């Protein structure tokens, strides 16, 4: 039986189909789990209970119920909207999230595709969502959405730079751009890169929060000012795409941070054969730790104003990241 399965999956097309299926299922699943975690955690922080009725006392089926609800809603497109662009925007945002999953190493040999330029690919694909957001803001034919879209364009482009610069330090330490290779470098070095790259890690996390347009960087959505910013006119399953994409993106960006800085699927002291099975669990646990911190920030801080946000990116994060690169490079050359 096992040999039959191994032969089956050694066929390229079968394994491709299998990988696509897993990725397609992972995104909604991860999205729902993180969404539910956010609801419950925020409730605890606010002296509430959170979802309570759907699925028994825990309310675990809340997001499943929400998903079904969104699907059966009427597909409303504003009369003046640009229809093809309006329909394409959520798809683009979701696609950029899904594509990120491809290069994340879940275990010693568990990676959908180990690209030799994995880091480069990940960052490039994640910036596709910027176009999707701009498309959403423009095509909605609504002044509030337009303002939200413009704010998003400014913010996301500004924070791309610290995001990219922050990972360069880890790449220098690992001497490779392949994601699996970076984890291997941390394994062989015996320590996670965050010990020396804490500045890079902090800059990456802040820039990731900004890329996700989560509070404190949620000017583009800014519920209390722009109703929902670029999302105002989206309802039904299109809104569900954006919604899922946000939570799934939290997962993927945190997973990238874990891979680059926190040692990925590796924990010191665990033998290799156990890691083959425990690897994904370790990665997911570390990722959820970072996701928890993101959720915690969201419910504690208010939002930055647009100009404060921009000055944070350009005047603080970019110089920090550049200094980090310089110092890392010097140390790498000197200490080998």
């Amino acid at each position: 039986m096992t040999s039959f399965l191994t032969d089956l999956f050694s066929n390229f097309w079968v394994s491709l189909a299998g990988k696509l299926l897993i990725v397609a299922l992972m995104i909604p699943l991860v999205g729902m789990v993180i969404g539910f975690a956010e609801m419950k955690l925020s409730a605890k922080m606010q002296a509430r209970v959170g979802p309570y009725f759907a699925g028994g006392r825990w309310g675990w089926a809340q997001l499943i119920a929400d998903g079904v609800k969104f699907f059966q809603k009427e597909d409303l497109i504003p009369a003046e909207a640009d229809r093809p662009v309006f329909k394409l925007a959520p798809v683009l945002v979701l696609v950029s999230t899904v594509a990120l999953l491809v290069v994340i190493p879940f275990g010693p040999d568990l990676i959908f595709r180990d690209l030799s330029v994995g880091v480069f690919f990940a960052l490039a694909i994640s910036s596709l969502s910027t176009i999707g957001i701009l498309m959403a803001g423009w095509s909605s034919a609504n002044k509030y959405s337009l303002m939200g879209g413009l704010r998003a364009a400014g913010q996301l482009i500004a924070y791309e730079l610290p995001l990219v610069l922050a990972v360069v330090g880890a790449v220098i330490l690992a001497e490779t751009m392949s994601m699996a290779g970076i984890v291997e470098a941390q394994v062989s070095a015996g320590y996670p890169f965050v010990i020396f790259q804490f500045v890079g890690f902090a800059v990456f996390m802040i820039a990731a929060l900004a890329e996700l347009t989560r509070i404190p960087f949620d000017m583009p959505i800014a519920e209390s000012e722009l109703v929902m910013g670029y999302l105002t006119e989206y309802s039904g399953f299109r809104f569900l795409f954006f919604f899922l994409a946000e939570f799934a993106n939290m997962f993927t960006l945190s997973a990238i941070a874990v891979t680059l800085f926190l040692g990925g699927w590796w924990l010191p002291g665990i033998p290799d054969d156990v890691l083959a099975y425990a690897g994904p669990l370790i990665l997911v646990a570390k990722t959820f730790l970072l996701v928890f911190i993101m959720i915690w920030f969201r419910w504690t801080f208010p939002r930055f104003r647009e100009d404060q946000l921009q000055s944070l990116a350009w005047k603080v994060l970019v110089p920090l990241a550049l200094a980090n690169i310089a110092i890392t490079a010097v140390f790498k050359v000197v200490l080998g």
Partner: protein
Amino acid sequence: MVLDQDLVRHLSETSVSVELETEDMTLNIGPQHPSTHGVLRLVARVDGERAFDVQPVIGYMHRGYEKLAEVRSYPQITTLVNRIDWVSGYANEVPFIVAAEKLLEIEVPERAQYIRLILTEMARISSHLVFMASYPLELGAPTPLFFALRERERVLDLLEGVTGGRFHPNFNRIGGVKPAYGSGSSTRKVIQDLPAGFLAETRDAMDKVTVAVDEINSLVAGNEIILARTKGVGVLPPEVAASYGVSGPNLRASGVGFDLRKVEDYLPYHLFDFEVPVGENGDCWDRWHVRLLEIRQSVRIIQQAIDGIPSGPLQAKVPKVIKVPKGETYVRAENPKGEMGYYLVSNGAQGPYRLKIRSASFSNISILPWILEGVLIPDIIAIMGSLDFVLGDVDR
């Protein structure tokens, strides 16, 4: 009232670059909007993120109270009047009833005055807690909302226990406050006083409110993002505030230590020891901070009042059909939102001949065109929220 010149905000210095001709956009904020505290509409001309001409349009909630007051009797108007500023319901009734009592020249018993004072201060705490809840929400921090509203529930439960209503107490009567009746015909003539345990529960609730206010303060005061969003934003110089009629915590945040509770005699505030918090710069942060300190002072007043409340009748002797003799008077009170006054013209009938309601929020937001000149859009929300107005108070 020396003003730091660096903080006086000048008119917008928007400069449009020569190569890039941009058009300005007219943006309607409201009347249905999460942050306008009701149905306020701001017609803003914006250039990018900067607004340079903001005109408020009000009247969506105009209910014609001044005209209605001419066809109602005094007890009926009490019902109308506590719907003006519905967040601090009880505080609206007091100056109106005091005006009628002034024209009747009757003396309100001490116990009734103490009860009125306690309930007014509780209304003040309730109103300021709503501000503590909604202002960080507008800035983007959703969590203080829950802490503040949870504490407000305690105060509202107390108000409901005494007056029967959380928002619209309708508790004042000409000559005092309304004593409770027993139910059923055999006890109809028995006049009851405050509910049993009210004073002890109030003491307990005040302690809990103090703890909660400290919690909210620690969540907000040290938060760099909130400070960056509110410090130096929306500076209101005291001379401008006075000439526009801005009153209450907004005026005190600009450095003017003027509190009607210290100078007017509508309630016996002179018997109690409390401070009047004053801000320094007149920006949004000061308006927040002054209201937070005012909650603490209100707690202090309530505790002193509970300790010293005298016994006695709850209402002076008044005729069954009350006709207020001819006269005119203006009574003003320190409401949570600012100065609320009633100019009462009476001609000896059962209702007033003319009742002019001077509401605090009406004057407070008349300053919006001045203060929102050349301001970024997120700051519009921050400044509007810090003025703490309610549309019922604006439109009457």
